């Protein structure tokens, strides 16, 4: 679900870099306000590596084939560290495995990183529902929602960006149909990543709950 070079016009790429710059500045500012900003760097580094590798794991969803993104999971577990983690992960993916591109790095980072920050806020919203849903179902539910919606929103942004920027030289109807099929194939992936996020969060809550506190 990475947008490669040459698909989007230059203005969109520049706007993507602007949004990524803004989101990175905001995330670093939020991180800097923590009592110990460096404390979570090892956790963030580990998940950056996981994010980098995840996009090489393909899941066949006939007739398409999708790969893991894990942006929602990063948001849930890392909070504001998720944005720089995704940015670094995407940079390495573009250079090493050819996913995405350097001109579209800003767009891809905003497309996956901003939903990751939303996923973090969705997960944090669990504290407001402490009387409605009991633990551990509450943590699992909000982790699932964070993991699934983080990916779902990113897929929606991808869909919008590529549908609005179909090249005039190709058959737009065919391309539009295929984009919709590919986007629909992300619905099962949302479930997979949501469940995986919930399982990871429940595991962390049992063995090292302080990793989830931020």
């Amino acid at each position, binding site marked *: 679900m*990475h*947008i*490669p*070079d*040459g*698909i989007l016009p230059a203005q969109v790429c520049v706007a993507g870099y602007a949004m990524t710059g803004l989101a990175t500045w905001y995330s670093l500012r939020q991180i800097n306000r923590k009592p*110990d900003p460096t404390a979570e760097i*090892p956790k963030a*580094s580990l998940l950056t590596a996981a994010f980098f590798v995840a996009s*090489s794991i*393909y899941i066949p969803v006939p007739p*398409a*084939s999708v*790969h893991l993104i894990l942006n929602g999971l990063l948001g849930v577990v890392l909070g504001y560290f998720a944005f720089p983690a995704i940015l670094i992960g995407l940079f*390495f993916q573009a*250079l*090493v*495995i*050819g*996913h*995405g*591109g350097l001109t579209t790095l800003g767009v891809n980072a905003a497309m996956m990183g901003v939903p990751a920050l939303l996923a973090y806020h969705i997960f944090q919203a669990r504290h407001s529902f402490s009387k409605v849903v009991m633990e551990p179902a509450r943590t699992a539910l909000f982790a699932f929602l964070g993991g699934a919606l983080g990916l779902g929103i990113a897929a929606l942004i*991808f869909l919008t*960006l*590529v549908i609005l920027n179909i*090249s005039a*030289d*190709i*058959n737009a109807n*065919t*391309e539009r149909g*295929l*984009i919709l*099929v*590919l986007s629909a194939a992300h619905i099962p992936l949302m479930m997979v990543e949501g469940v995986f996020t919930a399982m990871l969060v429940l595991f962390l809550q049992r063995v090292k709950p302080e990793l989830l506190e931020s």
Partner: protein
Amino acid sequence: MRHRLILLLLTTLGGITWATPGFSHGVSIQYQILNSVEIQARYDSGEPLKEAQVVIYAPENPTEPWITGTTDTEGYFVFTPDLALPGTWEVAVRQAGHGEIVSIPVMADGLTANSAIGTGNEASADSSTPASKALDTPDLFPRELSPVQRWLMIGAVIWGFVGTALFFSRGKR
């Protein structure tokens, strides 16, 4: 007598068959050996881009498509560039928001001997002239790492070791 009649009949039929080598509608096949370019577009998972849209731009006009088409079920597409238009031909393959553009140098006296290998995004287009394809490795994936990729990976591994060492040496705070 009867045998002679059958023999005569067979001889006549044989003569007719010999005289008319085909049926009434003649079919002729002409062939010409051309310098063509064959591309194959695949995702990095190795899966071909089936029926993906292909747009080819000639060197003299990189904005107007020279020809368009679709890849076959194995991701292949073959075209014959106009040798009167030497320069860099651009081949773009697109499918569902994914794709790649590969540049193919074409000389006035024919295609270049060395095949160009496109480096891919999520999808990659490999190209080679059919004549030189046999000389290539049959499968172009996994493609060779570029120097930038190699140094980046070496740097990442070293940085990983340094980071791990720093993590364990930081002590309790």
